[in-house]
């Protein structure tokens, strides 16, 4: 099937099997490999992207269902050279080790802030609990999200 959508501000189209996930479309067809394939069951959060601003597990969304929608991946988060404050905070707080889960963590954190749910450490910890980090950079992730929240 043909699907047309906006990815990181750019209109894109692709021919895709109706059974494939948005994650497949992004990674294999558009070469946007920032969203990671971690579990394909919505358990790990590594594939998190924003669809019309909503945090979305791209492994659980059919690619065809993204037609007409606007998708933001980690590659499209910065505005030109200007990093998104959360990207900068993850750098400043070294909130990552291997970094495989990081794009998903950052996009989940963007949504956490947008939802106004970063007022306490516990709120962040609850909100971010869908994103696994096996290296367990958890203390730094909480610190990074809280730092951006505090600066607002």
């Amino acid at each position, binding site marked *: 099937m043909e699907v047309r959508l906006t990815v990181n501000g750019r209109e894109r189209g692709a021919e895709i099997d109706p059974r494939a996930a948005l994650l497949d479309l992004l990674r294999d067809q558009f*070469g946007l490999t920032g969203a990671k394939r971690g579990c394909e069951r919505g358990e790990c959060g590594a594939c998190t992207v924003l669809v019309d601003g909503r945090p979305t597990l791209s492994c659980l969304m059919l690619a065809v269902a993204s037609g007409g929608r606007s998708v933001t991946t980690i590659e499209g*988060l910065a505005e030109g050279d200007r990093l998104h404050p959360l990207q900068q905070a993850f750098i400043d707080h*070294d909130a*990552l080790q291997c970094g*495989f889960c990081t*794009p998903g963590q950052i996009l989940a954190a963007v949504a956490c802030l947008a939802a106004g749910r970063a007022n306490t450490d516990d709120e962040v*910890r609850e909100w971010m609990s869908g994103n696994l980090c096996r290296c*367990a950079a958890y*203390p730094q992730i909480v610190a990074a999200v809280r730092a951006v929240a505090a600066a607002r």
Partner: protein
Amino acid sequence: MSAVNRRDFLKVTAAVGGGLLVTINLAACRDRGAAGGAKAADPSVFVRINPDNTIVVTIPKSEMGQGVRTSLAMLVAEELDADWNQVRAELAYYDPKFGDMGTGGSSSVRQNWMPLRTAGATLRAMLVATAAREWGVDPAECTTDNSFVHHAKGDRKLHYGGLAAKAASQPIPAGVKLKAKSEWKLMGKDRIGIDVGPITHGTAQYGLDVKVPGMLYASIERTLVFGGTVTSFDKAAALAVPGVKDVVEIKGVGIGVTVHPGVAVVATNTWAAMQGRKALTIQWDAGPHAAESSESYLATMRAAVEKKGDETVNTKGDPDGVLAKSAKVISGVFETPFLSHATMEPMNCTASFKDGQVELWSPTQYPDMATAEVAKALGLKPEKVRVNLTMMGGGFGRRINPDFSVEAALVSKAIGQPVKVVWTREDDLRHDFYRPCSVHRIDASLGADGMPEAWRHRVSTPSIDVSYQEKPPEGGWGPNETDGSANMSYRIPNRSCEYTLQASGVPRGWWRAVSTTHGMFAVESMIDDLAAAAGKDPVEYRLAMIDGVWWKQPPDFPEYPFRADRLKGVLQLAADKAGWGKPLPKGHAMGISCGYDHLSYAAEVFEVSVVNDRLRIHRVVVAADAGPVVNPNGARAMLEGGIIMGLSAALKERVTIKGGGVAQKNFDSYSLLRINAAPVVIESHFVETDTAPTGFGEPAVPPVAAGLANAIFRATGKRLRTLPLDIKLA
């Protein structure tokens, strides 16, 4: 501080495009291989200074989140007096000239401590000599800072990038002096990871992200029963799936590699490959292990520790005799399950076979082994195999195994095209190399002073080594399996450790910190029980008993002898920082444990409360000694990550074997500790003993389970001896 006096240590040449290229002979000064003893002919690593002043260090180790690219680059940059902002780290490919590229055992900083610092210092001397000649001054009047050579008197300075090409023709100085710790500018201070930029931009290329021209994707249905084989298969339905190009059988590769027999479906995209795989019909022969289960292992291991072990790993005095005569024997049986590494990036590898050569892009921790095994499996000479390292989404020991590299090479050879073999989470969880399950039994008796008089520790596990070799290593299967058990560091006049091998078809491997993860759980829990029985404080009790070891040191590391003062040092520091013995909030209790793992020392205190059978971890304090700390920020990340991974194992993780295969499939059944359950406060402290550094990657993991169990014991009076601990988090 120390001087290296080997003229043949460095080779310096002009680099293509200007600049200077340094070849470091690692064999000449690696801490292990003495000259001539190194297995590689010309092990070397490269440092490149470009005309634009960037300095590129090729890191001969695998980056999997442990920060090795940052810390190894720091070793060079410190002695070079480089501008840290201009230092880049480059991924390596496998070449024997790099020396041992295996990344594990918390060894990277230890192995590269002398060579990389010496390289930096030597280069610096050459750049200084070049500048001095240019100015016509005495090199002794020159200083360096931030990639500049300065001449104070003349108020002149020159950039490294501009000097590099000329420096290449300088003679290589011998006997350069390395900085004393007090002279460090970069090291010992917090540095953010060198790769945070590409990672936070989503542009870092992990193995899973590799794309090479003409590449196809493969997904493999492997035997779900370990030891099973393919009897026959029907590929018609798979081939009918749009996008599927080919279906090929994968013959298993046995011991030492463990590629599971299966059928690979190759397609134009990941998704089609997976669909094709689901459409396969395969007839399996279940093989010899189909009746095995976690219960069956447990039953035989439990029986094994009730009698004398098949191997006596070591013995001192007469523990059996003393225990037989003792009026009161204190016993504990400890049980731990198989564990999975569960790296966030599932296994994968890209391979391109063409004209009798194969190139791989592999997220491997051990390209040396991958190269050798790929060559063997494909019938090639090792020089016909090129393994490029990629970024890795976690390793923890899983990626030492060459199975995924060999698999990809086999598929590529079979189809004659480049291919990426993608593992699903289910594949990854069900075809791991698992931390062995274990049963430990410790019997001990106390003397009149309350100190242990006898200690007999019996261990039974499916050995890791069995997955890699048919005959036991010298000294039997026991010594490696009882790391943390047989070599525990308490002075007890009569003690022994016995070992009985458990047969199992489950592939076993090295899980972060390896055997100490279960051995130390048993030992440190038992020591706490003995302290309680003696009515003594657990910290005082340990301090009174920690002693120089009486068993033979592993021959590999005579330079790093066990030192009782260092273990006592971290124990005391952790207790002091935690406020051990001081009043706690109502309902709170502390537990402590300590240990020696991979040549480093760690002690941990857990402050917990248990309300309505629900556990809360309020605070964790860790003190560690791995010598001087190169990057405190990275070292803290390793300690905190190690503790949380240890907690995840202590509270949640269990691989269950049913019908000879793994029962768990995904993170819903193999559950990991999530951010909301991770302790809020982890305080890391260092003891920086003035000695050559070891590593922080593993030593924080093994004390966790016992430290937590000890805290729960002190909070509730209940001693939990089975992992994962039977307690729910609040």
